[in-house]
């Protein structure tokens, strides 16, 4: 099951600007240095404490599941692994896990962000996925 096309909206525009240049942007509090989910919004419209900051891209798998589907062109069965990853900066992220063994134990697997085009058209955004950094867990 491939990534399906997604387009930006005003709330996600800065994030997708980042993915197009290979950056995974998080929100960060200037006052404390705390990293937040990229979808976090300021508590007040004029708040300037939140800034965008690039994540290092490293993470570990918190949980995972395998989706069953079919290839749209060939009708061949396809298994897609999705998961929750804990970014090294702290926030969690929900993402496809690519190049992993769908029958493997992915507990605490170290992964690294990569970026894939979600579709063929110019307005189809680039989305983050995660790949294992440990060769033993690769498919």
């Amino acid at each position, binding site marked *: 099951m491939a990534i399906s096309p*997604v387009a930006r909206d005003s709330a*996600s525009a800065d994030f997708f600007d980042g993915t197009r240049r290979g950056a995974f942007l998080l929100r960060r509090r200037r006052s404390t240095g705390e990293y937040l989910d990229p979808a976090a919004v300021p508590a007040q419209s004029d708040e300037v404490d939140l800034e965008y900051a690039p994540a290092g891209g490293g993470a570990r798998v918190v*949980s995972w599941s395998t989706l*069953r589907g079919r290839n749209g062109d060939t009708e061949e069965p396809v298994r897609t692994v999705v998961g929750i990853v804990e970014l090294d900066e702290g926030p969690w992220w929900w993402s*496809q896990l690519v190049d992993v063994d769908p029958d493997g134990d992915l507990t605490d697997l170290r992964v690294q962000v990569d970026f894939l085009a979600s579709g063929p058209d110019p307005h189809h955004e680039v989305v983050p996925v995660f790949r294992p950094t440990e060769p033993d867990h690769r498919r």
Partner: protein
Amino acid sequence: MAKTGDLPAHRRAAIVGLGLTEMGRVYGPTAQQFAAEAVRRAAADAGLELSDIDGLLVSAGVTNAVNLSLQVDLGLRDLRMLTQLQAFGSTAGAMVQYAAMAVESGMVDTVACVFADAPLRPGLTSGAAYTSRAAPRGWPGLREASGFDGPNTMYALAARRHMLAFGTTSEQLGAIAVAQRAWAGMNPLAQLREPITIADHQASRFVVEPFHLLDCCLVSNGGVAVIVTTSDRAASRAQPPVPVLGWGQAHPGNRWRRNDDFGLVSGAARSGPAALRMADVAIGDVDVVELYDCYTYTVLLTLEDYGFCEKGECGAFVSTPGVLGPGGSLPLNTGGGQLSGYYMWGMTPLSEAVIQARGQAGERQVERHDVVLVSGNGGFLDYHSTLVLGGGSGT
């Protein structure tokens, strides 16, 4: 928090009417028509005229096709309370809670609470009915594009986490499905009544690993309504009143954010004890348990959070012979639940709770039914409601 016993007896809220339409793959009526019929049946069940209703709480399902115009469809004039509520699977319990507060305060006398939905269409699979149809834009679009297009995936991730943390197995989840199917075999309203085994559970196809098909709830068209009034009015009605003894809600607020409790602890851990305190009963006093069971795993987690067993031990608990199923020590989801009975969101456990509390469940009736515990769960373990209802076994 006040206890319901602090109120004068005549002011305490009770459920006096229950209306269920045809449910399942029933095509033709719209969701709003199902809702209207459910309210008519609930009023008739209570021995009330529609004109006796002065409050209406409306809850729509995934199609969001029931709204405030239901008042007009039913010809209800001069209502003193009218609201549409949405807390997903916790809504049914929440509606009864708000209705109870409204009648106990004297704001209204008689409130109808109704849920209806009609997501199934001829030729459409149950799974397709609940797959996201949102436009693939922004944050929701990014999640959908990445494979998170419905509740199956999120609950599968939660269940996997419980398995990793506590060693819970698929076979233990299967024990819940098998027990509930055995109860469904005695429920004429249940959509699936053929007995199943653990082997059947394991052999059923994977929907989203680790969930097999038999871990997942049904999808149904239909409607359910209940009527809430004060105990003094309830005493003269056609059905045995079901007192609303206690209630609680808990909504953790971590949706799509880091949540170290994800899959391990839900809002039930706060909502359940609050409801029991309000009812002035302990978990050991509960006779019948009707839990929201969108998945087998949801039942397991809620049992733990309510305190029927220690955290992390529910897999062993539910698979111990003699605990679940007809004749077991824990009468749980006695109508088959959403897994085998019918899927009316939180109205599934609530309707069976009312039937059991009244002592009207026929061959599946639980002998002792003085205290009935009901859960509602919505979102991806994001919203939770609990009700404690009274029964009348007199034992």
